[in-house]
């Protein structure tokens, strides 16, 4: 998993690339939680081809931490197969999803 950071106004974009799975979940979690210290965060998933339950757990933790800190957290650019994993788990109802990075930043 590679994570590139960008800044758009007050929002941080974390562009994830690779698989968000059991093996990559711990390092990804650490990174996303530290980025939330800087304010609102958008996880750009357009280069993530695979998400397992361990990966969803990381995103849930980020969403919970964002709520505690009073900042925004959303995801954008989900590939269709990854979106299906979100929908089956019910995560589409608890983590805001946007089609594009621009929409996610506008909604942050």
């Amino acid at each position, binding site marked *: 998993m590679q994570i590139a950071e960008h800044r758009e106004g007050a929002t941080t974009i974390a562009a994830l690339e690779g*698989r968000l*799975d*059991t*093996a*990559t979940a711990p390092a990804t979690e650490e990174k996303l939680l530290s980025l939330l210290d800087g304010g609102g965060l958008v996880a750009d998933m357009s280069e993530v081809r*695979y998400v*397992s*339950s*361990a990966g*969803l*757990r990381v995103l*849930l933790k980020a*969403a*919970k931490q964002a*709520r505690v800190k009073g900042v925004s957290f959303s995801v954008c650019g989900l*590939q*269709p*197969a*990854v979106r*299906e*994993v979100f929908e*089956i*788990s*019910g995560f589409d*109802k*608890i*983590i805001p999803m946007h089609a594009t990075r621009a929409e996610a930043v506008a909604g942050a």
Partner: protein
Amino acid sequence: MDAAALRHEMPPEVEALPGLLDRLEEFSEAAGLSPGAAQRLSVVAEELAANVAMHGKGASRLLVEARREGDSVHLLIEDDGPAFDPLSAAAPDIDAGVEERDIGGLGIHFVRRMTREAAYERRDGTNRLTALLDAG
């Protein structure tokens, strides 16, 4: 070896899961699975293998087999740990909000939702989980 069949033996460790996912991606491509079907196969296999790796104390080996037959994919996960039926786990509450949402049981929820059939049996000192998935 048949391009549309996979046989992958691995140690029951979390560190070995990326190698399994690599092999599953190769299999899905060779077997001509749709992107959705490939994702479902990888999720189901990873959840079951991770279950053995993280909870199957005493297992010394883990075998993953997959083969395509027509519009179906047959998956087998076998380990030599103590008897355990992962399908007996309780279903998660997928309607809970972000605050109360607990992640427990989500992996098995995926196994149930992404397979046409899944069955567990204890045979000759091994746990055998077989599942049938759509190839399209």
